[in-house]
């Protein structure tokens, strides 16, 4: 059928060939391609770009969503900076982010390493590890909510059975944060492990072979070869977990609902997005909600840059510089030793200090 289509099309095109003396412009020729890419740009203009610009405008106003907008200039932002609840939300978010991201990426690295070495059951492991990530956050948060429950939770039953005291996980500031971080970690460890695994598989076996020949121990191989070679993948997971971590919302909303304290007792689980949601959609402070959105955006950009500088960026240059610095210092030390006669051992002890 396709072939006959093509033939029919050929004859159709041949009959309406454009005038040979006037070739169509490059833009006219590319019309179909512009049409092909246009849906995304049109949708983005309407539901992406316009709202972004509108949110700037909105953040300079006070508006309850129904009445007239009132121009307030920079008041929303100055209020934001002095609003203790907003700063608490940032602190909560960052604590939950650290509590979830650090164990998540470390565990993922361990699992990916084990998966890489395993030759059997690989398909089974992958599906089992990935399952938490594809199931609904709402449903699984409800399950974890019951596991962490203050009175009848499985975790407290376990603590009791081994003779420890119950902990009021969902009432205490740290308990709340640990509960939320646990849900996030549980959902994303497998995902990150799969990504790390792909990175591991991309490292050539020759490098490991060479390290083996040189007599490198397995921990040396891991820290000196695997981790540096994985750096681009680690950067990817770090950036995505940062962006995801700063936007945590569902876990705390489902655990605590639309109560006066949206983040549970004392608002210990109120994240930046919970605070945005509460301000805009519960208290109907649309202008303030828009301002919080901008604060969130700035934070995400800031943290992405920090990640980039720490893990990726102009690394080769930095490493060479550091190596050059170290070499220069060692030469200087040797020279100093030669002139003062300090014994060898001292220089060894100084070694770690010059790494920084």
């Amino acid at each position, binding site marked *: 059928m396709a072939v006959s289509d093509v033939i029919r099309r050929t004859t159709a095109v041949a009959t309406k060939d454009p005038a040979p003396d006037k070739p169509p412009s490059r833009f006219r020729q590319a019309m179909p391609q512009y049409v092909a890419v246009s849906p995304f740009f049109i949708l983005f203009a309407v539901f992406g770009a316009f709202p972004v610009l509108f949110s700037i405008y909105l953040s300079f106003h006070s508006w309850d969503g129904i009445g007239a907008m009132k121009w307030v200039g920079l008041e929303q932002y100055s209020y934001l900076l002095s609003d203790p609840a907003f700063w608490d939300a940032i602190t909560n978010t960052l604590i939950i982010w650290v509590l979830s991201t650090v164990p998540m990426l470390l565990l993922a690295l361990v699992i990916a390493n084990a998966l890489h070495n395993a030759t059997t059951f690989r398909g089974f492991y992958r599906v089992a590890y990935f399952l938490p990530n594809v*199931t609904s956050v709402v449903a699984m948060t409800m399950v974890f909510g019951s*596991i962490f429950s203050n009175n009848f939770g499985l975790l407290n039953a376990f603590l009791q059975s081994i003779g420890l005291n119950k902990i009021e996980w969902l009432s205490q500031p740290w308990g709340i944060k640990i509960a939320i971080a646990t849900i996030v970690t549980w959902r994303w460890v497998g995902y990150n492990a799969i990504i790390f695994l792909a990175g591991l598989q991309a490292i050539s076996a020759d490098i490991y072979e060479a390290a083996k020949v040189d007599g490198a121990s397995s921990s040396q191989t891991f820290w000196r070869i695997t981790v540096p070679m994985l750096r681009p993948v680690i950067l990817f997971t770090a950036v995505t977990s940062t962006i995801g971590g700063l936007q945590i919302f569902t876990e705390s909303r489902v655990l605590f609902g639309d109560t006066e304290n949206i983040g549970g007792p004392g608002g210990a689980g109120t994240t930046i997005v919970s605070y945005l949601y509460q301000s805009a959609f519960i208290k109907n402070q649309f202008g303030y909600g828009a301002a919080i959105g901008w604060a969130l955006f700035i934070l995400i950009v800031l943290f992405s840059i920090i990640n980039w500088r720490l893990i990726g960026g102009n690394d080769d240059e930095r490493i060479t510089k550091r190596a050059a610095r170290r070499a220069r210092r060692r030469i200087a030390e040797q020279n100093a030793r030669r002139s003062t006669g300090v014994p060898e051992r001292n220089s060894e002890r100084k070694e770690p200090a010059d790494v920084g």
Partner: protein
Amino acid sequence: MSVERIRTVVGHVVLMLGVVVSIFPFYWMLVMASNTTPDIFAYPPKLLVGSHLFENMGRVLDNIDFFGAMLLTLIASLGVTVLVLFFDSLAAFAFAKYEFPGRNLLFGLLLATFMIPSQLSLVPQFVTLAEFGWIGSLKALIIPGAANAFGIFWMRQYAKGAIPDELISAAKVDGAGFFRQYRTVGLPVLRPGLAFLGIFTFINVWNDYLWPLIVMTDPNKLTLQVALDQLNGIYGTDYSMVMAGALMSVIPLIGVFIIGGRHFIADLAAGAMKF
């Protein structure tokens, strides 16, 4: 036993422990959904699957319009998935295989939109949709997500490698226009990539919570996630019923994942490696 063998065994023990942790919450959900609420509150708690599963599921159906919510979620997820597959693959085909003025600029622009977090414009997006009169309707769930930068980026990477230039040249010689080239050359080759993007999109829309929570304001037209959250909010202490609802909401998704899972995971990882 050799050192090598011991390491393999230790590796599997570590991995199995991880699997237990990954799977346990699902098991626990089933335990709670199949026991009575007093059983769940007892000490020591019941650790085995009980016999009240269907009774608990029945109570879910009595209390919320579960199948209504599921149908609505299914329509939204399928709607977004079909549109995303079409628009994204069409755009990706053009970006990957054709030279046209401004192509790199447009693609750069597309990548730049990755930087914008969806929550930044949550409030104005809501206001925009309210102006359109879309609040509470399926349009609010489907149209804004009908094409996305991630999908186009991912499909473009896929199309670059998968579609041979010779095929396109041959189609051109045969006089096929751009859209016919897309249909006869692009689509068949892109099919595995479309399978991944389709599952990915479907799962994301199915699980989305914040956006439907804001735009689906009609209590008779809620998505599954929001309906489930309401069930939890109203009958929060009736664990066995709430968990039966959670279980019912998760089953279709696990089905989709198990069917397309193996390829899906490999494709997702490959996509991440391209960044």
